[in-house]
Each structure stands twice: as structure tokens, then as C-alpha cells.
């Protein structure tokens, strides 16, 4: 009963809003280039589905590659900070700089470095910048979250620095890493879209490019259709990561 309400309530509200939108557009005779009714968006979505699907895949693949790269870099750096207090002091402030720098501001520079022939590399690099911090910060927090008594036990049995990291701190960090990757994945998708905007027409023809292109041509229905696809992709990605996090935690705790 509860679950039914969980699904039915938002669905009913969405249908109600869509109906209101449709009726308002028709009753007020709103120009289609300004605000097309949902029916027109649905038509645009159906007509452009192969193109939009292709674009969505390009954006998603940039985001996923960026997530993998950001994950590797962030975890490697976090392990270095755990192994050496000096490296910790050296790396942390620089990691914060990466966090506070807006990705759009970096885009032109990174595009020059990647070269005009390889805009996809620039997009991946920019999405990496965005996805890096939550994973790094989750990893560093997790590597410090080990039970202090377990740390004492490792000391008592003469564990090496590496044994402490590999056998205690890294496994203790897993719940934090799962959370960091969930947040990082969402951000890498946002990063990929923002980077595409930054790259403009020279970029990979992903969803952001579709939105820009439709906007330039005043094809507002296609623009909104691209947004719908982007939103659906975000929701799907989030659902997959939530499930992965739950499964990961279950495995970690053993129940």
C-alpha cells in the first residue's frame, strides 16, 4: 500500500502538471517556439529518438570514462595521503583548489591542450575535474575512519604501514568510497554536460550539443525533448548507483 502510494503520488502530480501545461498552451495560444505543449515535446522526442539516444550515449560514455579516471586518481592520491603525513599536507590544499575552480572556467584552456582534433579528451578531463573531489574527500575521510581500537591492535601486532592501509584503512573506507562514487558519478554527468557547453559546436555531439543546436534553430520542442532524455539518464544513473551502493554495503557488512 505504502509502495503503491510512493509510485502513484508523484506520477499523479506529474500527469496533472503536464495536463495543466497542455491546456494552458492551447488556451493561451502560446507560440510553439516559446513554450511548446507536452504533446509537441512528445512528438519531437519520438521523431528525434535515434539522434537523441546516440547523443545521450556520447554524453554518458564521457561521464563514465571520467568517473573511472577520477576514481583511480582520487583513490591513488588518497592512499598516498594515508601513507605519509607530509604528502597529506602537500596534496590536500591542491585538491581543494580543484574543487573550488568552476569547470566552465577551465574549459577553454583544457580544449586548447586537448587539441581541436580530440575534443572528447577535453570533455573527459573536465568531467574528471568535477568528479574527482567527492571521491577523494570520501576516500580520505574513510581512510581515517578505522576503529581506533583496531588501529591499536594493528600496532600491537607490529603491522607495517602498508598492512595498515591495505588491511585496515582501505576496507574501513569502503562505505565512504561507495558514497563518494555515487556523488562523483552524478557530478561527472553534470561535468560532461557543462564541458560540452564549454566546448560549444566544436565538441562531441552529445546531449548538451543537441540542446544548443536546437536552441540556435529555435526548435524548442526538440530542446525540451533533449532535456527530458538528460533527466531520464540522470535518474537512471542515480538508481543504478544507489543499487550498487546498497549491494556494496550489504557485501561489506555481510548482511
Amino acid at each position, binding site marked *: 500500500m505504502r509502495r503503491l502510494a510512493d509510485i502513484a503520488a508523484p506520477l499523479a502530480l506529474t500527469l496533472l502538471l503536464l495536463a495543466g501545461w497542455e491546456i494552458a498552451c492551447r488556451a493561451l495560444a502560446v507560440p510553439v517556439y516559446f513554450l511548446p505543449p507536452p504533446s509537441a515535446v512528445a512528438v519531437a522526442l519520438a521523431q528525434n529518438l535515434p539522434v537523441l539516444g546516440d547523443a545521450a550515449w556520447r554524453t554518458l560514455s564521457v561521464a563514465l570514462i571520467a568517473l573511472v579516471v577520477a576514481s583511480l586518481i582520487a583513490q591513488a592520491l588518497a592512499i598516498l595521503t594515508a601513507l605519509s603525513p607530509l604528502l597529506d599536507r602537500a596534496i590536500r590544499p591542491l585538491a581543494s583548489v580543484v574543487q573550488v575552480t568552476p569547470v566552465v572556467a577551465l574549459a577553454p584552456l583544457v580544449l586548447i591542450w586537448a587539441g581541436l582534433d580530440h575534443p572528447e579528451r577535453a570533455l573527459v578531463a573536465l568531467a574528471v575535474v568535477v568528479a574527482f573531489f567527492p571521491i577523494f574527500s570520501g576516500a580520505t575521510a574513510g581512510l581515517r575512519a578505522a576503529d581506533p581500537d583496531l588501529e591499536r591492535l594493528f600496532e600491537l601486532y607490529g603491522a607495517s604501514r602498508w598492512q595498515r592501509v591495505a588491511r585496515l584503512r582501505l576496507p574501513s573506507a569502503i562505505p565512504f568510497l561507495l558514497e563518494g562514487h555515487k556523488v562523483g558519478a552524478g557530478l561527472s554527468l553534470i561535468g560532461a554536460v557543462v564541458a560540452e557547453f564549454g566546448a560549444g559546436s566544436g565538441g562531441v555531439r552529445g546531449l548538451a550539443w543537441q540542446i544548443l543546436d536546437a536552441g540556435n534553430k529555435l526548435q524548442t520542442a526538440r530542446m525540451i525533448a533533449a532535456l527530458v532524455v538528460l533527466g531520464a539518464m540522470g535518474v537512471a544513473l542515480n538508481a543504478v548507483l544507489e543499487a550498487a551502493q546498497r549491494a556494496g554495503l550489504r557485501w561489506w557488512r*555481510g548482511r
Partner: protein
Amino acid sequence: MTVAALRHVEVDYARGRALGPVDLSVGAGEIVALVGPSGCGKSTALRLLAALEAPTRGEVVRTPGRGETAVVFQAPTLAPWLSARANAALPLELAGVPAADARRRADQALARVGLAGAETARPAQLSGGMAMRVSLARALVTNPKLLLLDEPFAALDEITRRALADDVLTLWAATKPAIVFVTHNVEEAVYMAGRVVVMSRGPGRIAGVFPVEGPLPRPPGFRTDARFRRTVEEVSAALAEGIAA
């Protein structure tokens, strides 16, 4: 023969003197209980004996080598991502014992604490008492010469507590390690120890030492024995005096 000793040991923390001066000697195969109010430095004394902490002044004498000292904490302190077997095998694994050997010895240690059959269970699947037994198995797996217990049963219910106290004494009888354990339960201290050391606080000092007569492990009905009751009362009185002072 002395296994570990504190010789005129003092410990200062930023907020002042925490412990000392304290002199305490633990002989081979002896069971010593440290009782006292919270903040009397009994856990500090235990960490000094484990060499997990260094004294500000004085000397800590220890004859057991690395891996020959084991500690059991108040909480089971198990790694949640490891099975009972892997948790029990951890000290061996850290010492570089081959995996198959470590596994066999961990299973033996689990069997000794009555957990045969629970080798693959994760800590989250175990009751508080069972988790504490895994913790005990982990401590016993290296056959330590010195076993340090820091309020090991404080979080358990009375029945589990008493059962574990008897089990610890039975396990002790097999290999006779020296045991030092911290508790604030006077009956538990008198029941388990051959010698009860009462500590007072501000800073932590030894307020009295009480030998306990009677065989170890305890025979059934020992808790109602007159000698047991008398020692419990003596220790309680010393404890009350130490707190009042």
C-alpha cells in the same frame, strides 16, 4: 618470574598527572584484576603493559616479544568485512604466517572459545557474546604469554558475562598466560583473579592489593563461598574509601 611490570611509573597528560607513581608486577601464569572508579588510570596502566603507550617517567618491563601480548577491548573490535575466521586469523596474517596455517590455527582458536561452525559468519551476524568470543579467539590465536583484557564483558548481560568469565578461566588453565584485566565489577574481579588491585583516582594510584584464596578455575558455587564473599566486601570497602579520599 615476572612477565610484565610497571616500575615507579608516572603518566602525564596535557591536563595534568593521570597516573602514578605506580608499581605493579605481574608474574607468569598469574591473573590480576585492576578495579577502580572511571578516570583512575586503569586502562592507561593496561596500555602501558601492552606497550601501546609510553610512560612519562619510570620504567615498563616486558618479557613477552612481539605477538606474545594480546589485548581484548571492551567492544569486540572486529573487522565487519571479515569472517569470524579471518578476524581470528588477523594477528597471524600480520605476522606473515602462511594463509593455510593461519586458517587452521584460527579455526582451532574459534573451537576453543566454543564457536566451531561459526567460522564463516560475519560479525554483524553474531550476538554480542559470540562477537566477544571471536575477539577472545583472536587474542588466543598467537598463544600469548600476556593477555590484557580492558573491561571485556562490560557491554554484555549478566548471564553471558558469567559464562564468559568461567570460559576465560578454563582457557587460561590450558596454557596459563599471565592475565591482567580491567573491570569495575568487584565480584567479577574477585571471581576471576588471584590478586585484585584496587586503584583510586586523582591521579591514579594503587590503593590496595587483595590476594584471593581458592582454586582457579573456580569450582561451582564459589560465588557463595564465605572466603569469596569476604574478599568482595574487603575490596568494595577499599574501593569506597579510595573514591571518598
